[in-house]
């Protein structure tokens, strides 16, 4: 047999096998141009086959944008997505559970088809990068042979179902949510009621309400374990999400019995399919449907749907098997009993070892820098897992692995074996354990280098982690390459998301500083931006803010979050003010490049930019002014002045729109209605303001606010309005940069 399909035919379930066969056929049909680009794009997304940076066949080399001439020529695998361009493959790992056999397969495939790196995502998935689309059916078959699927890992579908990685062994949990997450994942996979969503749908389970592992509040649907009258069930949350404008999930049911959770999701799926937005992707997540209908009406419709659902045995069949669910440790429980500890063991044990509720057993956290592990390490990790714990490895949303059921007396030996392969870095769950999305490394949407910044911060903080104040050491940093929040920056003590600013004609990578987010209480609070700082100054911002906290907290008991909640936003902004300055290019050119990337942002523009001299345009000044007003909105919100805060958020957008109009016209009205009308005519309708991926979403924030001023404000709704305002201003910066590019091209054309 000379192909994997024949070799593995008896090891793959008929259903998975058929799905993969169909996808392989679709690839062949697309090669023959018998499938439309858009349809094929959604088809491959549903199989986890995603695009990647530069897959439009263009790459800026620091001087100019150059064409990447792939052998496939004009053949596409989606709109503006070249067939031969390497892409990303996302692999679903329900509740993060993975065993040694699966780890070995993941290692093998990363070598043969990707870049020999296994990457853990912020939703417990695995990702490969630089994969050719024609290799994907084989990868899927080999994964299927060890019980893993990529089906519905991307696209408008129910994504990976996540859960606390400590479920079943956690000291605080109400009960083990793992089997429920598994049942949900299996039930929803390819479910006919969830095939026509307007957007993706994310589900999470948590074993307790206080701790963060499940981060239920930021999911479309979440369940927190609860027992009532001796019966297992869940507190059900709906309509949460991060994204550009985060939404806290709302409690849909205080308690829903375990036998109702699968039919509930099915009913939600039907309502979401029927009433969810389909045309405007920016408003298509279920959080918008819940907001539009109101929670009460949404719940009523779901319950109505639930009543007419045809009975399905699978709703409850897994419950009968729950008594048999459980993990069987391969080693007897034990204690350290004064064993000799290897060098570095104590420091590692302090943060990387967690006591299970089962006496004598520990969970070991393997901290992976940037969520990456090499194929070689992955294979060795499989051997180590097999030796010490058996099947019980899990991925985490903090982009780490955990090993469960480690007998305590095995810890020194396990540490030495992990250390030998570079997997015993200390400091899990601390300030050095930084979460970052792929950002500009591989993501098409990335604006700034989130991974580059994370690596820089890690290298700066790791050597000094033992000298840090304990409260500082326990902080969490999360970084996204853009406003879309894949790095979950909203729920970090210190969050950062990438953006860019135009400075004297040059683009400079920046990160917006987000403070006040809460990782605990299942993502209990979302942070707010306090200002954009050049990327190269972020390390200093981290040091400044942590020093400021240590020096000014009321007592050692005052947490970082309490401290920043107590402090005025304006005072916080003052702390970072000195780092917002960008030195002239000739004085320090490093500010004009991103971390780990020597290419100067739009170097081709700079030749023209230098001719423009030191003149700062009025548009730049006004855009800065818009940012200031938006910040003032946050201050008003902080003071509980909801109307004022909302009004300032709106005025900030007006100022941003006015700044753009000033670039084009000398005489600008000061009347908001006229500004919006002009903005709509010259920037929105012409699509000049449109984002390549978000399209008109950010412009709509202003237009909608102008047409329909909000009433019945509450803290959440104003919070969202401020987020929208900030995004509008980001888009205004991007639009201004685009206008400058066009202008320079025109000038350049005239010179020729």
């Amino acid at each position: 047999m000379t192909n994997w399909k024949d070799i593995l035919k008896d090891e793959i379930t008929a259903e998975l096998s058929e799905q993969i066969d169909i996808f392989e056929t679709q690839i062949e049909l697309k090669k023959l141009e018998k499938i439309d680009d858009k349809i094929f794009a959604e088809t491959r997304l549903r199989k986890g086959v995603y695009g990647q940076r530069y897959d439009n066949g263009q790459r800026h080399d620091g001087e100019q944008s150059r064409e990447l001439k792939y052998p496939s020529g004009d053949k596409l695998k989606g709109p503006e997505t070249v067939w031969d361009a390497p892409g990303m493959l996302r692999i679903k790992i329900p509740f993060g559970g993975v065993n040694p056999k699966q780890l070995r397969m993941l290692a093998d495939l990363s070598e043969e088809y990707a870049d020999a790196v296994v990457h853990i995502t912020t939703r417990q998935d695995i990702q490969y990068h630089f994969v050719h689309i024609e290799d994907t059916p084989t990868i899927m078959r080999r994964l299927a042979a060890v019980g893993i699927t990529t089906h519905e890992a991307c696209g408008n579908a129910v994504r990976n179902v996540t859960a606390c990685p400590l479920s079943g062994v956690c000291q605080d949990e109400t009960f083990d949510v793992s089997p429920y997450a598994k049942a949900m994942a299996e039930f929803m996979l390819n479910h006919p009621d969830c095939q026509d969503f307007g957007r993706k749908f994310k589900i999470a389970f948590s074993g307790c309400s206080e701790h963060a592992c499940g981060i239920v509040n930021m999911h479309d649907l979440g369940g927190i374990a609860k027992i009532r009258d001796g019966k297992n069930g869940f507190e059900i949350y709906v309509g949460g999400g991060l994204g550009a404008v985060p939404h806290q999930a709302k409690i849909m049911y205080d308690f829903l019995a375990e036998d109702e959770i699968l039919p509930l999701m099915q009913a939600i799926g039907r309502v979401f399919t029927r009433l969810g937005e389909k045309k405007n992707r920016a408003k298509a997540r279920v959080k918008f449907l819940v907001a539009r209908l109101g929670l009460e009406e949404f719940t009523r419709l779901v319950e109505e749907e639930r009543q007419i659902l045809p009975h399905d045995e699978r709703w409850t069949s897994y419950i009968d098997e729950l008594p048999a669910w459980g993990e069987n440790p391969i080693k007897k429980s034990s204690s350290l009993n004064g064993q000799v500890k290897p060098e570095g063991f104590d420091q590692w044990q302090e943060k990387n070892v967690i006591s299970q509720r089962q006496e004598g057993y520990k969970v070991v956290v393997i901290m992976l820098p940037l969520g990456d592990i090499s194929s070689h390490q992955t294979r060795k990790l499989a051997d180590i897992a097999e030796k010490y714990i058996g099947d019980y490895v899990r991925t985490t949303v903090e982009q780490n692995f955990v090993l469960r059921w480690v007998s305590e007396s095995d810890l020194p030996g396990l540490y030495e074996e992990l250390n030998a392969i570079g997997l015993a870095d200390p400091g899990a769950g601390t300030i050095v354990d930084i979460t970052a999305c792929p950002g500009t490394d591989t993501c098409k949407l990335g604006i700034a280098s989130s991974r580059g910044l994370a690596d820089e911060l890690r290298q700066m903080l790791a050597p000094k982690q033992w000298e840090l104040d304990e409260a500082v050491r326990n902080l969490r940093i999360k970084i996204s390459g853009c406003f879309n929040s894949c790095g979950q920056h909203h729920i970090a003590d210190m969050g950062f998301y990438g953006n860019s600013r135009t400075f004297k004609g040059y683009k400079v990578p920046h990160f917006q500083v987000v403070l006040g987010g809460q990782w605990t209480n299942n993502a209990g609070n979302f942070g707010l931006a306090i200002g954009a700082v050049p990327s190269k100054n972020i390390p200093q911002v981290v040091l400044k803010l942590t020093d400021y906290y240590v020096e000014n907290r009321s007592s050692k008991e005052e947490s970082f979050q309490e401290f920043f909640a107590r402090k005025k936003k304006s005072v916080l902004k003052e702390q970072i003010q000195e780092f917002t300055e960008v030195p002239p290019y000739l004085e320090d050119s490093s500010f004009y490049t991103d971390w780990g990337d020597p290419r100067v942002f739009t170097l081709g523009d700079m030749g023209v930019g230098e001719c423009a001299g030191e003149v700062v345009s009025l548009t730049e000044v006004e855009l800065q002014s818009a940012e200031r007003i938006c910040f003032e909105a946050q201050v008003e919100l902080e003071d509980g002045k909801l109307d004022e805060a909302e009004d300032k958020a709106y005025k900030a957008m007006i100022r941003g729109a006015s700044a753009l109009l000033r670039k084009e016209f000398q005489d600008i009205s000061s009347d908001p209605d006229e500004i919006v009308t002009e903005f709509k005519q010259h920037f929105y309708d012409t699509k000049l303001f449109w984002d390549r991926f978000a399209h008109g979403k950010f412009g709509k924030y202003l237009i909608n606010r102008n047409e329909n001023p909000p009433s019945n404000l509450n803290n959440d709704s104003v919070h969202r309005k401020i987020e929208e305002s900030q995004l509008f201003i980001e888009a205004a910066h991007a639009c201004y940069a685009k206008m400058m590019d066009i202008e320079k091209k025109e000038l350049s054309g005239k010179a020729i």
Partner: protein
Amino acid sequence: MELQKFGIKLFFKPNGSYPSKDFIPVFHNWIKTNSVPEHMLIDVIDYSHIPDGPGIMLIAHEGHFSLDKENNMPGLLYLRKAKIDGDFQKRFESVFATSLQAAELLHKNKIGSEVDFQSNSFRFIANDRLLAENNEENQELFSNTFNEILTNMYPSGKWVIEDYSQSGERLAFTINFQDDTNIIFN
């Protein structure tokens, strides 16, 4: 022998110590100047944070170049992905030539200090478990094939094939020349 996906690793000299990140601008410059013939260079990825990992990678449509650190044996690894016409000897010669070209480029770039390679050693890595499963039969098959190929390439050379990869890893082995044969920059 149908194997198409395989690679060659050229080892740095044992005393060579090169900060990984110094290679990032070098690889970016290779992209800008189209430095590797018959390759469409796409991007540079920094994996220097992974111990024992691929270090800095230069991604190309035809194959990836990396400053591989596996088994604490740093070197330049070229792993071919795209098909090459001809028999296995021809394919090997092509991949070997690309590896040597890349090594010479790195040598000329002088990363802080001059990048030097071991001139009497290279590692062969089969990157296809379907066509080259790592078992004794294939180890012998590929060793015999390499003995024939190397006899044609270095008629007076003496070498040993050793350090076979462990079970579970990709089929791989190292060719160590026992004489003054210089495979680099001839």
